[in-house]
């Protein structure tokens, strides 16, 4: 499978990365090189093979459902580019 410039622009939008016309052209070539390289996986017979879900055979750890953390609003917003009274500020989303 290979991608065209239109697909690259659609994927870039899905990934929320702005691309110029030139970027999209260049990325098309790069992505096709990588997709061409991974193509060889199709020759592997995977009938009856389960997809891997965990590399270590272990049951997922669960913890007791109690509050162990909190009251850290100031820490959480400390690195944000724009905040107001422990809220993150973003451009208007709802009119």
């Amino acid at each position: 499978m290979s991608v065209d410039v239109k697909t690259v622009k659609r994927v870039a939008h899905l990934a929320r990365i702005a691309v110029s016309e030139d970027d999209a052209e260049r990325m098309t070539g790069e992505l096709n090189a990588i997709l061409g390289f991974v193509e060889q996986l199709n020759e592997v017979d995977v009938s009856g093979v389960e997809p891997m879900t965990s590399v270590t055979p272990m049951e997922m750890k669960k913890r007791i459902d109690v509050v162990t953390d909190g009251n850290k609003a100031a820490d959480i917003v400390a690195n944000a580019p724009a905040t107001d009274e422990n809220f993150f500020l973003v451009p208007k989303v709802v009119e």
Partner: protein
Amino acid sequence: MSDLTRLTISQARAKLHGKEITATEITEAYLSAIDRANPALNAYVAVTGDKARDMAKISDARLVKGEGGALEGIPLGIKDLFGTEGVHTQACSHVLDGFKPRYESTVTSNLWADGAVMLGKLNMDEFAMGSSNETSYYGPVINPWRRSRLDTVVMPTTHQGDGGFVSAGGTKTQRSLDNAQLVPGGSSGGSATAVSAFLCAGATATDTGGSIRQPAAFTGTVGIKPTYGRCSRWGIVAFASSLDQAGPIARDVRDAAILLKSMASVDPKDTTSVDRPVPDYEAAIGKPIKGMKVGIPKEYRVEGMPEEIEALWQKGIAWLKDAGAEIVDISLPHTKYALPAYYIVAPAEASSNLARYDGVRYGLRVPGKDIVEMYEKTRAAGFGREVKRRIMIGTYVLSAGYYDAYYLQAQKVRNLIKRDFENVFAAGVDVILTPATPSAAFGIADEDMAADPVKMYLNDIFTVTVNMAGLPGIAVPAGLDPKGLPLGLQLIGRPFEEETLFQTAAVIEQAAGTFQPEKWW
């Protein structure tokens, strides 16, 4: 020994506990070495001198009272991927500009609890994506090793050579260093360079497809990626969560064992942290390997592999045989599919993990007319080319209609790769010996690699299988190529049998010796 930076961790540990030197002295020695070398090598992106001095002072107080921990007063460098409270933590990406976490990663917490001293944060490929440390927002790291040539120089008969070999005929051979700058490998290039160039006693690193072992091989250092689940991933910037593991880069096998013992732990904050006690890895060093079964996988003899790599591999086989190991030929039939499967799984996980860099919660924000434009502009400006490329691949293979063909197929192949190893271990093989990399260090801005991303990816051809199967792997220096550059061998072990790796790597180290670059910086 006058230069304290030349001490290994085990040597420094003995001198610190024996009160022959102080933590402050050794810390100052490293800080001035960094001052002198960093403009040339670019290994550190942030030096935490004041913090280092404060930590050393506390260590000295403990050492005086005879209370020092396992790493008391040992100065370490920390890869920029590890969250360090109040200190530069940016994964060497523009998108994390100014980020200083309010928390400390579990691995670094463990090191500080054992008394280690932090010198600063180490350069790396952006978000650990790269094999040359050239994708860093802070510029490439330079390998302290350079190619050299052997020249025959005619000497006046009355004069004795200075460090060269004087022959009876009045000529001597001397190595002269080439000026070309080489990459230290990646993504832990800053860690490898800092350890190799004596800018820290040891360093933390991470490995998703070879990012500890490949730079270790390129710089003549020892690097181990432990079993998935051995070191907590909590507080480490995530790249591909099912593959990422932390581990040390050190000057010798013993130092790597000392560091891993401190870094590893069982951590309730990481659900993939495995509930097993951490053994004393150092105790494995020096144990005989007589009767150990060493597997040699035929699939690692790849087309176009340079002669010196094959020769190195044969030397490794001979050393282990001499030490009493039994050498057996094995087959890992799905080896060639590991790299393509990795380039689906890792980008898929990365595209998901890196979705959090949106200009809202931390780091860079580029304004836009609405929130979507703000996201798109922020991410376009904040991520470098390689990171964007991988996010795009990941987004594509996970998108509607392609998920089964790419992602599911790759996860099935991944199971087959793991099964290959399980079969070999079930047949009684204790450890697998392979080359660590398909070549020695290459030049900065190598044109072939810049033109074709896949060529760069092939650097990880011998290391990536280990991440796909979640196994432990160690790279240990084993010799120099004809141009005087270090080459490494890799040992792969059963899950959680890191001790076998240290035990076997120590045998290779004893036979091969250790390697230090000639100082030019």
